[in-house]
């Protein structure tokens, strides 16, 4: 509309209706977006050292499976989840801790003792005992945790 419009009663009412309609639309639209998106944006991750267990359990040269449990709150449901960590030591003094989550698309890998390799059942991803990709689609080695040893106990840094 380029030509100036005379503000008649009809035009005023029309503008008012569109204006109020728009306000009501925003009044529904904005809360709706906040309501739908809101819980997705909450991040309550904090860093913590989780105790895996005694270093004496680690077999030298072979990745050893440790687990720890975390309490998680999803929506209105509180539950516990068991998280798996593979720990490898080649000398019994230094340790690397690896996530069991495949770097391809997030399936759980497991150690196949006969082949001395990690295997992911989803798309045949294969990793060696230090988590390096040997075959298949994974784009990078297995993720590692920061490790510390206190009084013969193994800890990994999780979260954050």
């Amino acid at each position, binding site marked *: 509309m380029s030509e100036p419009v005379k503000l008649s009663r009809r035009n005023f009412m029309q503008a008012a209706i569109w204006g109020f309609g728009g306000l009501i639309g925003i009044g529904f639209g904005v*809360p709706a977006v906040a*309501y739908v998106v809101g*819980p997705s944006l909450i991040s309550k991750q904090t860093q913590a050292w989780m105790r895996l267990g005694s270093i004496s359990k680690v077999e030298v040269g072979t990745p050893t499976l440790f687990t720890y449990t975390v309490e998680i709150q999803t929506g209105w449901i509180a539950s516990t989840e068991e998280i798996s960590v593979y720990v490898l030591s080649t000398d019994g003094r230094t340790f690397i801790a690896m996530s069991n989550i495949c770097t391809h698309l997030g399936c759980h890998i497991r150690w196949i003792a006969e082949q001395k390799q990690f295997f992911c059942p989803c798309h045949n991803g294969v990793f060696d005992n230090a988590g390096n990709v040997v075959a298949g689609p994974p784009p990078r080695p297995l993720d590692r945790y920061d490790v510390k040893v206190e009084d013969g106990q193994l800890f990994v840094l999780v979260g954050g």
Partner: protein
Amino acid sequence: MISKINRWLDERTSWHQIWEVIFLRKIPKVNWFYTLGSASLFVAINQAITGILLTIYYVPTPDHAYDSVQYITTQVPLGWLIRGLHHWGASVMIVLVVLHMLRVILFGAYKFPREVTWFTGVILLLVVIGFGFTGYLLPWDQKSFWATTVGTQIAGTPPLIGEYLLRIIRGGTEISAVTLVRFFGTHVWVLPSLLLLLIGVHLFLVIRNGISATPKRGR
């Protein structure tokens, strides 16, 4: 630019003709009581929007219904607002449709040729009450449980068919998971489909027949 797009669309859809029939139709001189139908429609749309939003978090099972409603109310951003709009909208809806009905009765607007509009309106009233009855159970708290106990018990009072009616409504002899989920299904699928269909017919007839003028003294 916009008028160009409008013309392009109009050439292919004749939407402007439809727009004119719906929004630019001639109406007699009326008063504010004639807005009660539109007000009911507005609140119905509010119920639809907020109701759809509530189903994003609500879970209709005995072990999750109450908790998911609490989650909506206390944890989800503006969840209290969405639930509040749906909760209070439900009561407003009943008030508005009853006032709308009274206006139609008192102004004699149900008479020829608008009887069928009136019939669909009567069924719409029952549908709205059905919404209220089924929706009341969904929060699954003490109030909803006992209100539904009483409400379904009343359905069980007619002779001969009463007991069957009661069991059909509850999906068994007790109020259970089966009751909750069938009330939910009725509330979000059956009744909305009916409501949409009936509102469509109702509004078509309102537009087709035009609205009645205010009754004049001595006629």
